[in-house]
């Protein structure tokens, strides 16, 4: 901790007002960012809480009135909402697990010197950089289109016909596009982890005649653990909020077969104009997130603290 008393200053006990002034001079630089964040992110949420207690449809002016907790009862009785919860969990878990595994494989492949390593790395990170709306379009029309798509053409020797993947396998289509986008993210973080391995330990293991598999299981994996936890958590934070790909690929359909929470709440709010209901759903989602996140944040914090020491 930086001690910022003036050189030569006598450490007499400072008066209370001096102490307070010192505290505020430390706080001052923080306040603009803190106040901005509170105003823009927390105040709207208080309004969400307030709206969730009202019956209010934007297309029926004058319909607004207080209904207490009725919206919440409706939300829990809504089978589409429960379906959206399940889809959100499946999409998030599926995407994070698959991209983590593929990303780990790729990181291991890239953690060695070979011709064009930089080029391959550049090729691999590009899917993460492409605007999600653009990549969803690209997959929907150029790759998965039943008639003109590359996927059906590539599979035609295996007897695939004009399968419309986005309709027949909506969840897998969404997960596929998400995995394509998030694998580079996992790869980059895990590759950084691999490259931070102490090389002398690896060399010692190879001198001792340990097989590559044993070295991987007993040295590399334990070392990577922190990186795996961190990439899982960060990946999950982003993927749980997936909206763009579902909006572009399936519109939550067919029916509600691939509708996740962000998309369903969006539908209720902006296509159904049901402010009260969508606000109540928002509150339920936030409470659920807080429960999951409290556990997750502690783990993240542990990794960050470790990094510092």
């Amino acid at each position, binding site marked *: 901790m930086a001690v910022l008393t003036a050189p030569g200053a006598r450490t007499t006990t400072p008066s209370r007002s001096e102490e307070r002034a010192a505290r505020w001079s430390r706080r001052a630089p923080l306040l603009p960012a803190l106040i901005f964040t509170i105003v823009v992110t927390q105040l709207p949420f208080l309004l969400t809480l307030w709206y969730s207690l009202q019956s209010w449809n934007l297309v029926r002016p004058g319909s607004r009135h207080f209904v207490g907790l009725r919206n919440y009862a409706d939300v829990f009785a809504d089978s589409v909402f429960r379906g959206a919860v399940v889809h959100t969990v499946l999409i998030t878990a599926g995407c994070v697990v698959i991209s983590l595994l593929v990303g780990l494989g790729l990181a291991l492949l890239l953690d060695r010197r070979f011709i064009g390593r930089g080029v391959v790395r550049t090729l691999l990170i590009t899917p993460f950089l492409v605007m999600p709306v653009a990549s969803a379009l690209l997959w929907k*029309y150029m790759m998965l289109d039943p008639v003109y798509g590359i996927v059906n053409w590539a599979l035609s020797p295996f007897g695939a016909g004009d399968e419309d993947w986005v309709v027949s396998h909506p969840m897998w289509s969404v997960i596929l596009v998400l995995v394509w986008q998030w694998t580079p993210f996992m790869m980059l973080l895990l590759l950084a982890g691999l490259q931070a391995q102490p090389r002398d330990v690896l060399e010692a293991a190879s001198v001792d005649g340990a097989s590559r598999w044993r070295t991987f299981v007993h040295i590399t994996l334990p070392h990577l653990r922190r990186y795996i936890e961190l990439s899982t958590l960060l990946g999950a934070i982003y993927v749980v909020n997936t909206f763009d790909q579902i909006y572009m690929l399936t519109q939550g359909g067919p029916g509600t077969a691939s509708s996740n929470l962000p998309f369903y709440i969006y539908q209720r709010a902006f296509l159904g104009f049901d402010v009260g209901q969508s606000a109540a759903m928002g509150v339920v989602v936030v409470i659920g997130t807080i429960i999951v996140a409290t556990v997750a944040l502690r783990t993240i914090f542990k990794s960050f603290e470790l990094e510092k020491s």
Partner: protein
Amino acid sequence: MADTFLASHRGRWHWGGRATTLVTWIIGLFFFFPIAWMVLTAFKHEVDASTDTPKIAFKPTLEQFSNVFHSGFWPYVGNSAFATVVSTLLVLALAIPAAYALSIRPVQKTSDVLFFFISTKMLPVVAVIVPLYVITQQIHMLDNIWTMVVLFTAMNLPIAVWMLRSFMLEVPGEVLEAAQVDGAGLMASFRHVLMPMITPGIASTALICVIFSWNEFFFSVNLTAARAGTVPVFLVGFITSEGLFFAQLSAAASMAALPVVIAGWIAQKQLVRGLSMGAIK
């Protein structure tokens, strides 16, 4: 480095090494293929783009790009560029002092404040979209680019605070103390000693903000329309207004993705640190 470890096995692994390299290259090209195909399609005439058997040989044309440019692409680019640049500058202006107050001259309860910042990233944005819509409507800020500037700033600020803090923690305390001993005031040592040392950190923070802002869709599609629409909104509107033309769509999507792809390619090294919010160097 990895090669010193592998060098001792060079003889034995010679062929295995080549095979691994080949596999790595194939996977890399496989991942990149959809993007390459999109860019290739952008240079096709529509007749060459919609064929049962994909065409690799075709007569290239720039027709699709000029179509995109003539269907009102530029105002959207202007909006995206404005919102991205202004929000990134705003993020830096707010986050640099905040990170300072959380690292070099820390306030009490630093970790509570950090916890608060990161927790706002975990709260689903969909939970606040309804009040945001109602508020912006009431203050007549719907379809206004400044609304996007404010929201993008709020979206990136927590990440920036965390990242910049991690860069500031790396600055050795003695350097700053030496500046103090030399009689430099707080502001002077901040500007002349600290700022130059964290310039690379500021650059990578800005890069992350640019990536997330340029690609943002959820706020834009709900709160903007023709006047303040950003590039992703243009892409969505483009399909509905122009009908489904593969080549034209590819040209539009390629153009939309290009700025961030290039920025990311140039700044690959900073990407890891940014994506892990400063946790991984």
